[in-house]
């Protein structure tokens, strides 16, 4: 007890003295790292603590994992200060080393924390050696960097596998350009700027381990050269300029054909028989002579036939419509189909024709043949759609007759003409009708029309709400289609020729077959229109032919076989009253006699 007390006091005094003197036991040293450069030896370094003012010795002790024997470091010198070098004999792989460092001085010692080391995990090779960078001028100058493996690493036997890496930069650059070289010992660096100096460094690493240090920089200077790509581009540019020049010259030479190809000329209207040159020369008579259809009615008074005469109908004559429903529908259709310019009647004439087509279709089979020559097919083809557009319930009229309607209108090209019909003024068509009619057709017209016996259709045709002129035309057409006038209800059509339309919107008609029809011989003086003389009980409108010898009275439908009467009053008699017979199916009011004695043509739509 006493001894221990004395020892304690002595220790305490010694400490005080040492503290007063500034010396103490060493601090704990610290193992910083252990490294193996080739997986055969390894070195451990420690960091000494404060030595306490006294000379301190350091000792490294290690213990292997599967034994308790403690060994001391075999070599403190090879690796330098504060290091321990384990040579080949002392190095074993895949065994844990428990290493500690002990610092000892006069006043005491201190032991570092133990460190477990497995040599397999602490491999860090030396730097590669003999780094050379050479400029190679094959296919554009590039730098070929080559090196050798670190001397100590045994890659030949496969004991250690090294992977290399290099980096390049110019002296003044901040960033390095890094390249991985794998296991090979050379590398080609491309795309280095010409006439510049570069520095190259290489390092390596084992397959599982730490990177080595970078080698000392190797300098290489790139020669001054023009990149080949530039010369290639120059050649390409010259070649393309050459090609462009050739193309331009070729285009210039072939200017015209190119223009023709790119900007094809817009085809101008070609009228058969029309000579533009002749027109330019100013001889209009010759120019138009080819356009004139032979046998065309005289053009005198055609001015009067313009627009005005189309507007013949009266809109409020609804009651005269037999099938108001149908008519309105047809009217709608016609309206839709036509444009409403001044020639309103003409606008609708097409549709009216269509109606006629439909209606006349079923009726007269016998009439078929007559119309065939006029191109029935035209009607069916061109207006089939329109015809069908008509009411389904429309009674079948004599197709043949109706079909020729459009044909009549367009003498040379029925089909085409018909198409145009919708916008052509009615007056245009009427003469055509007249042209084609035979003088004898008139009387039979009544028959024909009458025998059509399509009551509903009559109403169809007479559409007060629609264009009167159209109905008028149709009426005329029908009349024209009949064969010999007044003879029998032959199936030929008799056309009436509209001579002119006088200022009072009256159509002056005369049968085409009228021998007196010749324009020259015609006496156009005086009244050209017909007055209604009377309306018979049979809904026959008796027109009074006035001074004018040319009468139009072929459009009469005799429902009661009064066609004979009518036909007797055929065109040969210039001033025969024209008998218009409303369709039997039409209401009595289908005929309308206007106050001034003129016939309301819209009412007088012949019914088929």
């Amino acid at each position, binding site marked *: 007890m006493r001894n221990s007390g004395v020892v304690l006091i002595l220790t305490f005094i010694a400490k005080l003295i040492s503290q007063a003197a500034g010396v103490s036991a060493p601090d704990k040293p610290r193992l910083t790292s252990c490294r193996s450069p080739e997986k055969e030896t390894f070195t451990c370094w420690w960091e000494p603590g404060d030595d306490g003012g006294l000379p301190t010795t350091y000792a490294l002790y290690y213990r292997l994992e599967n034994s308790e024997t403690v060994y001391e470091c075999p070599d403190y010198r090879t690796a330098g200060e504060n290091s321990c070098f384990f040579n080949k004999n002392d190095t*074993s792989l895949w065994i844990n080393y428990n290493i500690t460092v002990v610092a000892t001085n006069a006043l005491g010692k201190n032991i570092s924390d133990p460190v477990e080391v497995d040599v*397999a995990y602490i491999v860090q090779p030396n730097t590669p050696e003999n780094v050379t960078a050479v400029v190679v001028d094959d296919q554009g100058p590039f730098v070929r960097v080559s090196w050798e493996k670190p001397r100590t690493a045994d890659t030949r036997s496969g*004991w250690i596998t090294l992977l290399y890496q290099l980096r390049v930069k110019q002296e003044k650059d901040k960033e390095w350009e890094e390249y991985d070289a794998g296991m090979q010992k050379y590398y080609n660096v491309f795309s280095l700027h010409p006439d510049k100096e570069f520095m190259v460094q290489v390092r390596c690493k084992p397959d599982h381990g730490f990177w080595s240090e970078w080698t000392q920089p190797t300098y290489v200077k790139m020669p001054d050269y023009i990149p080949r790509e530039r010369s290639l581009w120059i050649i390409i540019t010259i070649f393309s300029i050459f090609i462009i020049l050739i193309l331009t010259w070729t285009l210039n030479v072939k200017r015209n054909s190119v223009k023709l190809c790119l900007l094809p000329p817009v085809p101008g209207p070609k009228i058969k028989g029309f000579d533009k040159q002749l027109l330019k020369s100013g001889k209009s008579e010759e120019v138009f002579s080819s356009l004139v259809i032979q046998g065309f009615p005289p053009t005198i008074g055609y001015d009067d036939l313009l627009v005005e005469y189309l507007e013949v109908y009266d809109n409020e004559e609804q009651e005269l419509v037999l099938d108001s429903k149908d008519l309105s529908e047809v009217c709608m259709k016609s309206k839709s189909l036509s444009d409403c310019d001044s020639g309103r009647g003409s606008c609708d004439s097409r549709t009216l024709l269509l109606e006629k087509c439909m209606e006349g279709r079923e009726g007269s089979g016998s009439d078929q043949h007559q119309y065939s020559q006029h191109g029935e097919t035209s009607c069916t083809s061109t207006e089939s759609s329109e015809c069908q557009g008509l009411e389904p319930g429309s009674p079948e009229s004599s197709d043949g007759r109706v079909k020729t309607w459009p044909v009549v209108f367009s003498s040379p090209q029925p089909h085409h003409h018909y198409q145009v019909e919708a916008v052509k003024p009615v007056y245009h068509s009427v003469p055509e009708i007249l042209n084609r009619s035979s003088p004898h057709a008139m009387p039979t017209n009544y028959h024909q029309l009458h025998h059509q016996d399509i009551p509903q259709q009559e109403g169809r045709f007479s559409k007060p709400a629609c264009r009167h002129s159209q109905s008028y035309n149709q009426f005329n057409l029908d009349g024209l289609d009949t064969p010999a006038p007044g003879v029998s209800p032959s199936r030929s059509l008799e056309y009436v020729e509209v001579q002119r339309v006088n200022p009072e919107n009256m159509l002056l008609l005369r049968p085409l077959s009228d021998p007196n029809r010749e324009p020259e011989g015609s006496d156009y003086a005086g009244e050209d229109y017909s007055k209604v003389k009377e309306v018979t009980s049979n809904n026959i409108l008796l027109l009074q032919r006035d001074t004018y010898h040319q009468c139009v009275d072929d459009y009469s439908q005799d429902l009661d076989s009064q066609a004979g009467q009518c036909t007797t009053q055929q065109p040969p008699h210039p001033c025969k009253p024209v008998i218009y017979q409303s369709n039997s199916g039409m209401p009595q009011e289908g005929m309308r006699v206007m106050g001034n004695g003129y016939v309301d043509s819209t009412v007088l739509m012949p019914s088929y």
Partner: protein
Amino acid sequence: MTQGSRLYFALTVLMCAFVSINGVGLNDLLERASQLSDKLHSLSTSLTNDLDSHFPPVGRVMMPRPSMCHTSSLQIPNDKDQALKIPEDELLSLARSLLLAWSDPLALLSSEASSLAHPERNTINSKTKELQDNINSLGAGLEHVFHKMGSSSDNLSSLPFYTNSLGQDKTSRLVNFHFLLSCFRRDSHKIDSFLKVLRCRAAKKRPEMC
């Protein structure tokens, strides 16, 4: 040509072809095996790093010693001189034995990985599964190498693994997982080293690689 000479000629051609094919095949096989083993070790290293990132300090104390690995009984060369002295087939059998010894433990590891008490559990789990796949392919590859080498005897050492579970509580499970993994990491390094030695020995045609 007589019938006999014709036959002889054909046989010679066939043998030459076979030998040449054989030689090339072994090289490529070993190259492929080395790549696989390299991958194996890298995976195990990264797994260990993931585990270490959130490892409780007490676990390090509890960690069993590395000599407790079930493969520690296998006699392996510990340095280069020893390793280079061993013939190829023995090296190969060493590698194969090690590989074989780890198929069961890895299965256990993979089953336990999903329930580890560790924040990086998912990564660990996926990597463990990958490890298992790699081991299987490497095992198959080494089988081929073995057949290619034409060794007479197949002296694989048996290194049984008797542990069925990693522990009862989550800490011991984690610690045991870590321990097993460290054992595997070391063994994979061994396999990789041995195979790379074998590769360089067989690659007489490609000196630049070794």
